[in-house]
């Protein structure tokens, strides 16, 4: 009950932010947790661009939180103009539960509506004392891993899928062996925090575990935040291509009359400037040619499996099969009988 009240309070607070402070349009961008710093920079750049182009002022308000929670807030009435979430399935949920976004949203922007992508990497302690270089090293010896809970965190679902992608290649699609590996992997997680930031704190500040499975940008951020000399980033040879999608919330922009500026806001993410800002915050740009080469150095080329790969078959299949109630992830923890 307590958390519901808090949620309600947060909702009211976010709603009050939507009231325009001055003339010109105001956009509300409802996003997930690790994009905070990126969108702060991007909003300033877009406001400048929009002023130069049309002479109008635009203010962009931000709301951040767990991706699923944010999607639920939009379904329940949070007046978002655009959503920039961690998972395609979260935007699909808005489409299905509230019909506020048109079902063809994914085709409306280039690159499956993902202007930037990311992947899952390992953050290890300085000197890599456990010698972790690839996914099989995670289940060797007494290595402990830290990951958030895939049931509550979008990032954690990508962690799980990245491990699955490696295991699928390693065990040549043998389902039992893949499940065995995933089970062993999650048995080595002493904590399942509810969000990606929580796991970063558990690993970096509390000193729990040997490897943090994290968003690439979150791993770099942890390095900056908690001291770059304390950790090392290990990029495995194979991982998942995480495509955090963006979409205009049709019902809301039509009601508010902000469609034009909302669409421009998302389109500008694909511009040279938008791509450079994304790369600066360690997101992988969808158009690397537009980006200064030294920004790309931090984002090494590795094999990235997409969610639409036959192994997974897209979010609409993955979500219920792996993360639904009683799905493969739930079975990991089922006590043996």
């Amino acid at each position: 009950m307590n958390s519901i009240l808090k949620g309600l309070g947060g909702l009211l607070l976010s709603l009050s932010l939507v009231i325009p402070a001055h003339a010109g349009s105001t956009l509300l961008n409802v996003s997930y947790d690790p994009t905070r710093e990126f969108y702060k920079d991007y909003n300033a750049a877009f406001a400048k661009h929009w002023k130069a182009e049309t002479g109008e002022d635009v203010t962009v308000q931000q709301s951040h939180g767990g991706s699923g929670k944010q999607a639920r807030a939009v379904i329940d009435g949070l007046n978002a103009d655009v959503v920039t979430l961690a998972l395609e399935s979260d935007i699909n949920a808005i489409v299905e539960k509230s019909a506020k976004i048109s079902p063809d949203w994914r085709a409306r922007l280039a690159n499956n509506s993902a202007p930037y992508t990311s992947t899952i990497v390992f953050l290890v302690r300085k000197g890599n004392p456990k010698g972790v270089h690839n996914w099989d090293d995670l289940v060797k010896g007494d290595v402990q891993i830290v990951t958030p809970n895939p049931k509550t965190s979008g990032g954690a679902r990508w962690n799980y899928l990245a491990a699955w992608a490696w295991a699928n290649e390693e065990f040549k699609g043998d389902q039992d062996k893949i499940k065995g590996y995933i089970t062993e992997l999650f048995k080595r997680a002493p904590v399942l925090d509810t969000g990606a930031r929580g796991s970063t704190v558990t690993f970096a500040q509390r000193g729990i575990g040997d490897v943090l499975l994290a968003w690439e940008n979150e791993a770099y951020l942890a390095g900056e935040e908690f001291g770059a000399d304390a950790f090392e980033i290990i990029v495995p040879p194979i991982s998942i291509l995480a495509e955090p999608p963006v979409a205009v919330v049709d019902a809301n922009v039509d009601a508010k009359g902000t469609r034009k500026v909302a669409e421009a806001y998302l389109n500008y993410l694909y511009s040279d400037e938008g791509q450079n800002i994304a790369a600066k915050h360690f997101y992988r740009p969808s158009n690397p040619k537009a980006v200064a080469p030294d920004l790309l150095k931090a984002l090494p080329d590795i094999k990235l499996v997409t969610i639409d790969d036959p192994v997974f078959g897209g979010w609409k299949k993955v979500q219920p099969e792996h993360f639904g109630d009683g799905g493969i992830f739930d079975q990991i923890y089922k006590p043996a009988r």
Partner: protein
Amino acid sequence: MANTSFATGWKWRQASVIPGFGLSLGYTLSYLVLIILIPLAGLVWHTASLGLPELASLATDSRTLNALRISFGTAMAAAFVNAVFGVIVAWVLVRYDFPGRRFVDAAVDLPFALPTAVAGIALTTLYAPKGWIGAWLTPLGIKIAYTPLGIVIALIFIGLPFVVRTVQPVMEEIDRQVEEAAATLGANRFQTIFRVLLPGLFPAILTGFALAFARGVGEYGSVIFIAGNIPYVSEIAPLLIVIRLEEFNYPAAMAVATIMLVISFIMLFIINLIQAWSRKRYGYA
């Protein structure tokens, strides 16, 4: 409430020197309906739309049962610890005067004021394997953070003021002459405590216990940081509700909530009955 006499049978209106009975009763009822009954009725209504067979299968799901067991078990354990040590704290604050007493008295309320997430983070920092306290316990093989024991610790922290604050005023009312009389009549110290003092305090201790317990069952903010949240081991029922919401599975979330509500209500009702019984038994009113 003690002077309500029903000797002449039940009557709507109680003769009282203070007017406005109708007004205040009407206010009370509409307030309760608006603040408590309507939200809860909405919850039960939505759960009822599930249908009994589905509710039954959700209720007997082994993960749900484990989460409920962990939630109610840890809340019960924490409330017991608080009932014992809270009474001792209250006793010290009421009966002894020492430098800094006012300060300690105020500090008891801190768990009320502190946002629970802050409490959870602080406790986890202390009890994590590399934390100040955890570092001492780890070599002994004792793990607190990320185990059910951690949940109990968090709930003890959250629940302490409930016991202290309900027991304290009743203790202040106890006449010292009662203890002196017990002593002059030849009671030893244990008899004085267990046969003279505690029976009078028992209803207040029970109230404090019930409050701490109820608070512990519903606690989310502090627990998720220290629990570890491993399914079947340290996953509390409120977290399971959040997980169901993340799956957009509203009916299942409501079902778990309703089950928690029903169990809590039954337990609190039983505690109230024991209380009424003990009041009668020991003649305190």
